[in-house]
């Protein structure tokens, strides 16, 4: 190496994220994991109510192609106070959709910090980590943390039971919140 040669600066890895609100809290999700953002009124696929007592955070489902997609009420998932949701995030390569209050903004994060080890319960599944934006700490959600494979299995079984029983009436106008 030549003396005085300048060291190449490491390119900063950035990730585009969507900041969204659920109840009074702001969360971030990688925009790469969101396939569509829809208004609750404009959701195609005839959402249906679903009632699975073990999963009260899921109240609606709809069909996408051959698959059932389950709508997770984000406030219920995180144990937050119920709020007026207006948007649905359809997650990419997933049978999960998220019911959220609204989008704060889209931005980029340059650093994702691991959740400190003191957090040792479900939040370790809920979050990929934490990021600092404008001197504020924002949890970055794990898209796979909203419904586990086991929970999807339980919901599929509930959907089958519901179909066999005739099912509740379809809410053609969108989600009945």
């Amino acid at each position: 190496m030549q003396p005085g040669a300048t060291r190449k600066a490491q390119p900063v890895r950035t990730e585009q994220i969507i900041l969204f609100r659920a109840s009074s809290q702001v969360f971030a999700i990688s925009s790469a994991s969101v396939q569509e953002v829809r208004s609750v009124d404009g959701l195609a696929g005839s959402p249906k109510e679903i009632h699975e007592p073990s999963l009260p955070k899921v109240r609606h489902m709809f069909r996408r192609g051959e698959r059932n997609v389950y709508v997770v009420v984000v406030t219920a998932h995180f144990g937050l106070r119920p709020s007026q949701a207006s948007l649905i995030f359809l997650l990419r390569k997933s049978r999960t959709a998220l019911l959220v209050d609204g989008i704060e903004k889209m931005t980029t994060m340059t650093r994702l910090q691991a959740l400190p080890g003191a957090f040792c319960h479900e939040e370790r599944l809920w979050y990929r980590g934490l990021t600092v934006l404008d001197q504020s700490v924002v949890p970055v959600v794990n898209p796979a943390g909203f419904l586990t494979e086991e929970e999807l299995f339980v919901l599929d079984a509930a959907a089958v039971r519901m179909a066999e029983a005739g099912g509740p009436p379809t809410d053609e106008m969108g989600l009945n919140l």
Partner: protein
Amino acid sequence: MNHPEQLDARSCVLLRLGERRFALAAEHIAELVAPSRVYRFAHRTPGIDGVILRRGRVVPVCDVAERLVGKKLTYRRFYLVATRRRGANLDWVALPVSGECELITADLTPASESDSPHVAAWLSHDGEVIEVLNLDALTPGASGEAVVPHSGTPEAHA
């Protein structure tokens, strides 16, 4: 009669929680900082109040007063930022304290089996017998503590 084994003199930081004083081995102390904004987000780990930012690092705030003196602190004078070893990494936690902290050197008496798990040792200072705290037993997420999802849906701490 056997007397408890006396350890060598060690540096400790005395901290105040309400009316009581406790000690932490000085080697576990990173810094003492003025209270700053606590950021809160949904989680289910009891004992964590939120997080603070220290030089870009996210540090969880663990209010240990409720466990040690029976009630949460109504007044936070400082955050004592301490470290715990977790595998190959150091884990940071901020402990709210209600008064000045003091660095002392004291002889430690090891804890006995009948002591609470949060007591690592005892020291005597100014005529007072003081618990030297075991951070691993006192704060959540110490190595070995399992991630156990709750079966119910308790209120999230947000």
